[in-house]
């Protein structure tokens, strides 16, 4: 792919080189049940470009070794690649320093780390943690656990029937007892883009710290943690075209410095005696044990790919796709969209007639179309809309208008079978 796409491409969908891009993703070139695969489960995990696959292969083939402590050549090469990835991530989210970029297993582990390290060491009984009704379970359960441990109280920002946060209610929840606000940047179940800058400013006005769950956001929109002024930002590599099992916790340095370690072990220490341990500096203080070295290096390659393609181009293409998909879905009988926020990304969550989403999923699979069906780890969202589950098609920049058509044909087939 050409490196100057970012410069030459205006927002026009017609110039986005989707066919070239698709050749970068080998997994897309296959048939499922005799039909060309249409992969529309990108909110669950994204596919990997050849450059990421080749990077992993190269690491394991040519310089697999442990990092930081080795004095031999392979270790030095692996360490350099690992730390170079940290630099790429720092630039990607515009962190002030690589000390603020901590590698973890994924967004889930990052949230648990903040809850158990920052939360557990600072919260007092009666303190309040604010989350929202549209959170993924990974941004609910760690806080419930923390509340059990500290006698803090969990408060919930409700959503409206378009799947948007009710900001007036959020405003009412904020008070001097509010200590942590943990909010999703973009909802995985609804596609809603939340006004995180506003949310952060309002929280800071009462001295609460803010964690933003960016798991769905980083692949679709540019993130600038300094401009957001968020205290913590978390995301997973596998939703950003990188490997599974690797993710990032961004934290403001002054907060991370004050926080106790989350896990003890090798690499997070400066010196250990049997009586006392001197912890390592940031970011290593939070990276106990041998990390997922290949994953980190692979994530760096994924970020290179996304940067080269250009998030503005990606976003423009995906916006065109979701507008088309939404318009086409309105032509399908008895299709009800779940999540109709004014600001949303390329996620189409819906129910169809009285057909259970899992039956939709199985019928579409037979047509070679992969979507997600179920509660999307957001059971409170399902409760709000009084549905047991939804079907969800989520688009990435390698998806096409023709694939939207295939989806709609599949949905009409569902109606035909259950007609």
């Amino acid at each position: 792919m050409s490196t100057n796409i970012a410069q030459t491409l205006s927002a026009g969908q017609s110039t986005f080189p989707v066919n070239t891009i698709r050749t970068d993703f080998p997994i897309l070139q296959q048939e499922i049940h005799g039909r060309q695969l249409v992969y529309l489960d990108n909110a669950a995990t994204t596919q990997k470009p050849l450059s990421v696959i080749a990077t992993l292969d190269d690491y394991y083939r040519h310089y697999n070794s442990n990092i930081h402590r080795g004095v031999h050549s392979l270790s030095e090469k692996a360490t350099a690649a690992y730390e170079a990835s940290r630099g790429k991530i720092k630039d990607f989210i515009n962190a002030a320093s690589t000390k603020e970029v901590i590698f973890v297993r994924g967004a889930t582990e990052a949230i648990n780390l903040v809850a158990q390290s920052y939360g557990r060491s600072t919260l007092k009984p009666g303190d309040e943690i604010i989350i929202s009704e549209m959170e993924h379970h990974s941004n609910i359960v760690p806080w419930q656990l923390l509340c059990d441990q500290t006698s803090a109280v969990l408060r919930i920002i409700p959503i409206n029937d378009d799947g948007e946060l009710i900001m007036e209610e959020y405003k009412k929840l904020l008070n001097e007892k509010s200590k942590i606000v943990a909010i999703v940047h973009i909802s995985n179940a609804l596609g809603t883009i939340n006004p995180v800058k506003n949310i952060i400013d309002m929280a800071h006005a009462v001295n609460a710290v803010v964690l933003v769950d960016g798991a769905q956001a980083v692949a679709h929109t540019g993130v600038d943690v300094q401009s957001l002024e968020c205290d913590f930002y978390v995301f997973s590599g596998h939703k950003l075209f990188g490997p599974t099992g690797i993710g990032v916790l961004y934290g403001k340095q002054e907060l991370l410095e004050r926080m106790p370690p989350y896990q003890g072990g090798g690499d997070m220490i400066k010196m250990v005696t049997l009586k006392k341990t001197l912890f390592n500096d940031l970011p290593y203080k939070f990276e106990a044990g041998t990390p997922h070295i290949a994953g980190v290096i692979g994530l760096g390659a994924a970020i290179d790919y996304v940067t080269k393609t250009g998030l503005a181009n990606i976003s423009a293409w995906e916006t065109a796709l979701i507008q088309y998909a939404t318009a086409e879905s309105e032509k399908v009988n008895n299709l009800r969209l779940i999540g109709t926020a004014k600001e949303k990304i390329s996620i189409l969550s819906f129910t169809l007639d009285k057909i259970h989403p899992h039956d939709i999923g199985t019928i579409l699979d037979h047509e070679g179309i992969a979507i997600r069906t179920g509660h999307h780890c957001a059971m409170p969202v399902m409760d709000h809309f009084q549905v047991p589950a939804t079907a969800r098609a989520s688009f990435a920049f390698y998806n096409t208008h023709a694939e939207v058509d295939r989806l709609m044909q599949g949905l009409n087939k569902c109606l035909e079978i259950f007609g």
Partner: protein
Amino acid sequence: MFDLKDLYQEVIVDHNRNPRNFRKMQDADRVVEGFNPLCGDRLNLYLKLDQDQIADLSFDGSGCAISVASASLMTDALKGKKVADAESVFDEFHNMVTDNKPHDAEEIEHLGKLAALLGVKDYPARVKCATLCWHTLHTALAGNKKTVSTE
């Protein structure tokens, strides 16, 4: 290549649309709730026994087409049967939807209408939808629990 109709064939679609024995039983001897966290299928199974015989069997709840049709077909097949016979039908059905073998005409014949559910074999993720009601019945017959989950 198999056809999708192997799973969503008319009998399944019909039993999903008009489930048999879909009612709350006021005078049930045993009521057991079955839950499949994958699909969110949730059913209540109502069992009335007359000594060693299933005098009445009904269900209500909500779920995917496979789970509703399966419960409908099961209740239809087992009403009036002896408990021991129901257990052996359970074993036969469960083995046939979970093993990896093809089945001969005689085996399929022996299952009767329940054979309509054999299509789930091609969709391993959906086998639990078909077996939920059976596990729930198994628990109801054993009479020792109030809820059963497929997980």
